[in-house]
């Protein structure tokens, strides 16, 4: 008879799509049938970070990871592994031998070997809906320690020693922020968790909450104790229903266990957390806009100072930190600021979580010590670019960040080094771009985003981004003019300097960084009407090659009858009529339509 196994199924969006929930149902049915339902526990976890290999199933003890599991495999897993202790080699994710180490950092598999998990330490290991699971891994121990052995000043001192900096983008020293908020005098103070996650193409905070909601709550409670607050708000995107459900359950469970509410763990400290939903506005990630949104107004930023630490929510001193920052707090308390400060490089301590996506073999979440290089993340951890394509750029920091070309791949990931080469750490979005993407269009994409998300309050951001976008659109449409590059640079610098909030101040970054690193591509667009990636339609023509067998599919698909040719003979596109809609390219089954 088998051991008492625990089977974890990943419930990240990718794995759900590939059927993880269905797998669990089936698995439970089979366990029932074999009479071992009482011995094997199954649960759905937050994103395990291996989205490309999903659906992922982890079986403990043993840390055996199965990838690409289908309903047909369930019988074998139950009969071989769960009953006969005989893991199914065929299904294991290759190069993944996991072993238990400090904080259960996942083992020497390539994907996990260079990672170090602090913020995500429990993700995928515990059942996020079970407070008992969290408690069993030293959960709420940090809070207990703080309440019994430490004064608020001690907590802040420990945090300063750790060198932890904000993970929401700007990297402000967390200890200092806490100190300022503690120092502000008021009868009422608040803490806020910023879970607005506005970067389009990133999902770190969502996964952290879905995988381990209690950590965030514990961090917030410690913060509230340190600054003297009794009320916390979790501002989370309405687009994240599962995360909202999980955090609500975690709050309710914590209340039942006396960990939230009045006189926590018998102390005289009281604290409660309330969820506030965002409603899809990127600028609401900015702290002053977020505060307005919680207050029930349009999410418009206001000038700082006064900073929220002095005058924040309902005009009271307010401590606002990012999800990942909060998730680091319990570790700093339990293992000490000294230990934490030894992880990382220079002035960047600890780890950073990245959501790596785009043209990459292993899309997913990674957490690495600061100082890891971009190359290590992209090639060693995430397996490089698929399909023999050539790497072109890596984008960090989302719409506020920059694009770095191959020469910068050995840049160390820390706040200072990334800023030095013209990008930013950001909140953790990392998009890999290969030769098939046009950098002018990339810049246009990000600017289109910030332009439409600009709240409209200040002129440089509202009007300036619009003018920049017009120029970019003109260039990608093949109508670029001499002098456009210089105009973009002038406008960009002006907007950076004159905008009211971080949105405008950083909006030109994607344009300026591509202008710096991929200037030739802009020039080719403007002066030679050429898009080397073959993406800008205006500069594109479709041709039919000798692969054509004359099936007529393209001829029928063409909406403007630009294609002629007899059956079973090579067809021809009349370039004067062609509107470059790409339908022929879409429908051809013989790779006979080429873009040039």
């Amino acid at each position: 008879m088998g051991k008492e196994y625990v089977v974890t199924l990943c419930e990240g969006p990718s794995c759900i799509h590939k059927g993880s929930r269905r797998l669990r149902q089936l698995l439970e049915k089979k366990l029932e049938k074999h009479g071992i339902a009482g011995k094997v526990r199954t649960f759905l976890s937050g994103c395990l970070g291996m989205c490309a290999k999903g659906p992922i199933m982890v079986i403990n003890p043993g840390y055996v990871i199965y990838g690409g599991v289908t309903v047909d495999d369930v019988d074998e897993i139950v009969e071989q592994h769960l009953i006969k202790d005989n893991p199914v080699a065929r299904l294991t994710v290759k190069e993944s031998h996991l072993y238990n180490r400090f904080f259960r950092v996942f083992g020497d598999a390539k994907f996990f070997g260079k990672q170090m998990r602090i913020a995500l330490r429990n993700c995928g290991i515990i059942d996020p809906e079970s407070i008992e699971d969290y408690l069993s891994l030293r959960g709420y121990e940090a809070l207990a320690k703080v309440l019994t052995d430490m004064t608020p000043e001690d907590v802040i001192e420990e945090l300063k020693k750790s060198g932890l900096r904000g993970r929401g983008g700007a990297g402000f020293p967390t200890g200092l922020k806490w100190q300022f908020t503690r120092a502000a005098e008021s009868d009422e103070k608040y803490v806020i968790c910023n879970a607005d996650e506005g970067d389009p193409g990133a999902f770190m905070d969502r996964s952290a909450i879905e995988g381990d909601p209690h950590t965030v709550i514990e961090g917030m409670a410690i913060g509230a104790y340190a600054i003297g607050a009794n009320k916390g708000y979790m501002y989370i995107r309405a687009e994240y229903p599962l995360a909202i459900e999980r955090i609500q359950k975690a709050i309710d469970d914590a209340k039942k266990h006396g960990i939230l509410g009045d006189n926590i763990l018998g102390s005289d400290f009281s604290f409660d957390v309330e969820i506030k939903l965002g409603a899809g506005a990127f600028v609401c990630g900015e702290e002053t806009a977020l505060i307005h949104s919680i207050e029930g107004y349009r999410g418009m930023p206001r000038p700082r100072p006064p900073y929220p630490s002095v005058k924040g929510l309902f005009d009271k001193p307010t401590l606002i930190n990012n999800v990942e920052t909060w998730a680091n707090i319990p570790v700093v308390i339990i293992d000490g600021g000294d230990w934490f400060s030894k992880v990382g490089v220079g002035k960047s301590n600890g780890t950073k979580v990245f959501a790596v996506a785009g043209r990459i073999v292993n899309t997913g979440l990674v957490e690495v010590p600061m100082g890891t290089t971009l190359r290590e993340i992209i090639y060693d951890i995430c397996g490089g670019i698929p399909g023999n394509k050539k790497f072109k750029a890596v984008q960090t920091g989302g719409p506020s960040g920059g694009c770095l070309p191959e020469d910068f791949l050995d840049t160390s990931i820390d706040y200072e080094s990334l800023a030095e080469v013209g990008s930013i750490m950001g909140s953790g979005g990392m998009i890999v771009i290969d030769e098939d993407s046009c950098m002018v269009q990339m810049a246009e994409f990000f600017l289109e985003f910030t332009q439409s998300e600009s709240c409209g309050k200040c002129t440089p951001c509202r009007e300036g981004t619009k003018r920049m976008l017009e120029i970019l659109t003109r260039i990608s449409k093949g109508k670029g003019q001499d002098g456009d590059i210089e105009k973009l640079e002038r406008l960009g610098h002006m907007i950076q300097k004159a905008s009211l909030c971080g949105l405008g101040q950083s909006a030109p970054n994607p344009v300026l960084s591509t202008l710096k690193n991929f200037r030739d591509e802009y020039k080719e667009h403007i002066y030679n009407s050429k898009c080397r990636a073959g993406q800008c339609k205006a500069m594109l023509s479709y041709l039919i090659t000798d692969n054509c067998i004359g099936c007529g599919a393209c001829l029928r698909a063409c909406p403007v009858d630009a294609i002629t040719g007899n059956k079973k003979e090579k067809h021809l596109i009349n370039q004067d009529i062609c509107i470059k809609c790409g339908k022929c390219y879409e429908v051809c089954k013989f790779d006979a339509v080429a873009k040039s």
Partner: protein
Amino acid sequence: MPKTDTKQDQAKLSELKEFIAKCKEKPNPQSYLIAVLHKAQELYEYLPRDIMDMVAEQMNVPTAHIWGVATFYHYFNLTPPGKYTIQVCLGTACYVKGAGQIMEAIQDELSIETGGVTDDGLFSLQGARCLGACGLAPIIMVNDKIHGDLTPEKVRKVLKDYRKAEKSKAS
């Protein structure tokens, strides 16, 4: 005035009113306005004008203020959506993998623009920012269902399948 013709209408309305009443008991009631609008949209699928008037009256704020908030946040619909709301992810990962072409294919297939609803009321089309399934990029979400690893051709087929399913249900 909001409709109260059917039992359903009445139930919805009283549920919303109860929700508002609860919010008004808490400190800083104004700060629950966005929560109230979420509730209203959950019940009505969009924010009808008469409901906004009702909320204004109940919460003691001008309708203009509510309109200002509702238009600021993309999440709120001001017109009724179709039976199936298609959200095309235009996040960065999806964009890099061709979300633009997916969007064009859908617009072409349904003959509507982003933000529009098909004449038969079956589909409405929206752009979305990262739906968190970047591993499957490019993706679309039809109501709650994700369709991933799309190509323009595949997405046309997805839409056709919905149409077909709808027809067979009707007949």
